[in-house]
């Protein structure tokens, strides 16, 4: 099986059609990926103001240069054990789109990994994980012999916001 092309951040982007770039991050030992075009910025973990009466995985909101941005804890969302935040804990700020416009939201992850190119045909459809709803996963990719779970950002982050009755399992 052909390996997805590996690119280190200094090389120019592959202009081949149907290849997307993904930013990958680590969560409980697993590697996940998000479309790089959706990544607005990466911040270190900082103070979060909790919001009352919200699902557990919404940690609260932060001040991002004057805008109020909600932060989602993916460990919570994926029913993983919670861990104390450390020096490598990172918040990835993403641009999320929904039918009523665009939002900016952040996700808390253990650490950021790298940026990879994945050709469309390299992406395999996800099996039923059981713990993560299939809607949230775009597909699986293999990068440098590792499995990367590529996430469907819009569905993942909108689900908790647009409706309060949210179930983690399908």
């Amino acid at each position, binding site marked *: 099986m052909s390996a997805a092309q590996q690119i280190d951040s200094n090389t120019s982007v592959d202009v081949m059609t149907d290849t997307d770039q993904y930013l990958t991050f680590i969560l409980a030992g697993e590697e996940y990926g998000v479309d790089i075009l959706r990544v607005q910025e990466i911040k*270190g*973990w*900082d*103070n*979060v*103001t*909790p*919001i*009352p*009466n*919200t*699902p*557990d995985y*919404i*940690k*609260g*909101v*932060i*001040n991002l240069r*004057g*805008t*109020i*941005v*909600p932060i989602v804890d993916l460990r919570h969302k994926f029913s993983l054990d919670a861990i*104390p*935040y450390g*020096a490598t*804990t990172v918040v990835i700020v993403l641009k999320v789109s929904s039918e009523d416009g665009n*939002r*900016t*939201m952040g996700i808390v992850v253990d650490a950021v990994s790298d940026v990879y190119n994945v050709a469309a045909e390299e992406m395999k459809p996800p099996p039923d994980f059981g713990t993560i709803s299939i809607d949230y996963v775009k597909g699986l990719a293999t990068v440098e012999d590792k499995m990367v779970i590529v996430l469907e950002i819009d569905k993942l982050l909108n689900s908790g*916001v*647009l409706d*309060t009755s949210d179930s983690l399992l399908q």
Partner: protein
Amino acid sequence: MAIDITQFHETFFEESFEGLDIMESGLLNLDIGAADNDTVNAIFRAAHSIKGGSATFGFSEVAEFTHGMETLLDEMRDGSRDVTQESVDTLLQSVDCLREMLGASRDKTPIDLERAEALKKELEKILSSDNNSIKSPSENDESNNTASVSESSGCDGWEIKFKPYHDMLRTGNDPVRMFRELAELGDLSVEIDISQLPALEDLDPEESYLSWKLTLKADVEKEKVKEIFEWVEDECDIEFNELSAATDKADNTANVMANATTAPPQTTDNSKKTAAPKKTATSTDSASIRVSIDKVDALINMVGELVITQSMIGQLDCDLDEFDNNRMEKLRDGLTLLERNTRELQESVMRIRMLPISFAFNRFPRMVHDLCQKLNKKIELKTTGEQTELDKTVMEKIGDPLVHLVRNSIDHGIEMPEERIAADKPETGIIELNAFHKGGNIIIEIKDDGAGFNKERIKAKAVERGLISSDEQLSDEKIYDLLFQPGFSTAEQLSDISGRGVGMDVVRRNIRELGGNIDVSSEMGKGTTFTIRLPLTLAILDGQLVCVGSEIYITPLVSIVESLQIKKEFVNNIAGQTELYKVRDDYIPIVRMHNIFGIDAEQKNLEGGLLVIVEGDGKKAGLLVDDLLGQQQVVIKSLETNYKRVDGVSGATILGDGTVALILDVDGLIELSRNPPTSGNTSTNQVREVA
């Protein structure tokens, strides 16, 4: 290469509505019988502009309607017609109609032509009295080409004898220009006559001494040829002779006045009544704002100073190891300056959104005038502080409440003239609208010298409605508070003017929604004063910081009644659930913030706890908090932009240390305390982590 003139429509509408305002206030200020000519002129010009513009931009019904008004005003301004009450009233009504027509034209909804027709007839009636006939709108949309009367078919051409008067050149007319135009029509030959040309030394280059005989071989009508010389008709001798025609026809074809006998507006196909589109006479919630250039300049200056301050601080090479007291001093100075700059910048920017309250006050002279006529009352309207500025959005939203209050004053406040005289008051009642700034707010007073509120009647009505018991002792404040209860009205008859008393509660709610307050003071027989207090802007809030557990929340100052320390003996328990606190004569429900927000409380028992008494939409509650921190102005940031609406929270703000603090929604909190959220979803038990 047609230019799309629809791009100018918006400007046309804007200036036309302004013109209508000028007309209206002008008409209201006219002294019947001793009309000030300047005012009449101004009114005329406004109508004239609207007519010209509407014709140019293709709004023919508007143009036609305005023509009648313009004609009447023209006669008034040149003195050939007196300014009478009848004409003023008809003109005022016409202004209203025109406003609707323009609004419909702008919104592309059907125009109420019936109303326009009726008013046109009124205008015609006035114009035709005293034998002044209405001039037919001669140039509906004729261009320069006057309808030419087709004479004989086909002609060989024209011989034109053209002799300009000696000073024709002074009007900037150039014979060559005209010849060129002629040449476009056909074959032109020119014979010049220089017999009048004086010797060179006597020649005045600015005068014309020449004459010409022009022969145009073209099959054109005389009108077309005449047209070319139209401008200079009176400044020359000119003769047109048809070629190969026996004699010169005397040109007695007068300019045909293309008077389409006032084509009656298509009453057939457009007779549907307009579904009365929103009658927003003055307040159009537009998404744009006119800003005076001074404000923009001030803003630019502020930013300039900010940039300077910033570079100043930047220059203070703040390498830690080299930092000394001197630098510290400079840094401190720089920061003070920075604070001043940002404050001034903030004020400057806020002022951009501010407009004088005259925009809101503008509609009242007309309203008072009309209602006085309707009710046969005599009322004088006085306004002060029209230049007091407030936020555009706040002003748009305060419009309706103001209207309601003024209507109330007119309807129920000011008595009939006879009553007033009997009460030893001047026959003409006075309603005052005052606006001024006070302590970061804008105060609007609606004052009348009318009958005042009858406290006994109010109490009686309240008892009747079951709002209070018959033996309750109420302070004045409480009594007037009853006025704001839904459905309350002490009016004997419900007039269609101020409605069924459904207004006052809505008025107060609207004002509260803007972050403001309304108070009443009244004296029976003397009058009533309503005082409205509003924040200067919607984006900034005066807040009281409170501490609940480890969280900081902002309570809007305007909602806070008082704060106190709890004494156990005043706490009452109802059915083991609701806790009430006795404050003087009131029992106020205690809202345990920790429970509602799911926070770990520091203070579980009530004794000694801090209670912040707040008021929202008529209801009071006491918020149990752990500590009171400072008061400060906060900038309101939306939670909904990136998240969504949260019950009990109206927004968020960013504190000095960069962290986010939530702003409490008092009404929402009170609601939540009655229906606490189902547990299991609260997540606010986490301790804040710092990287």
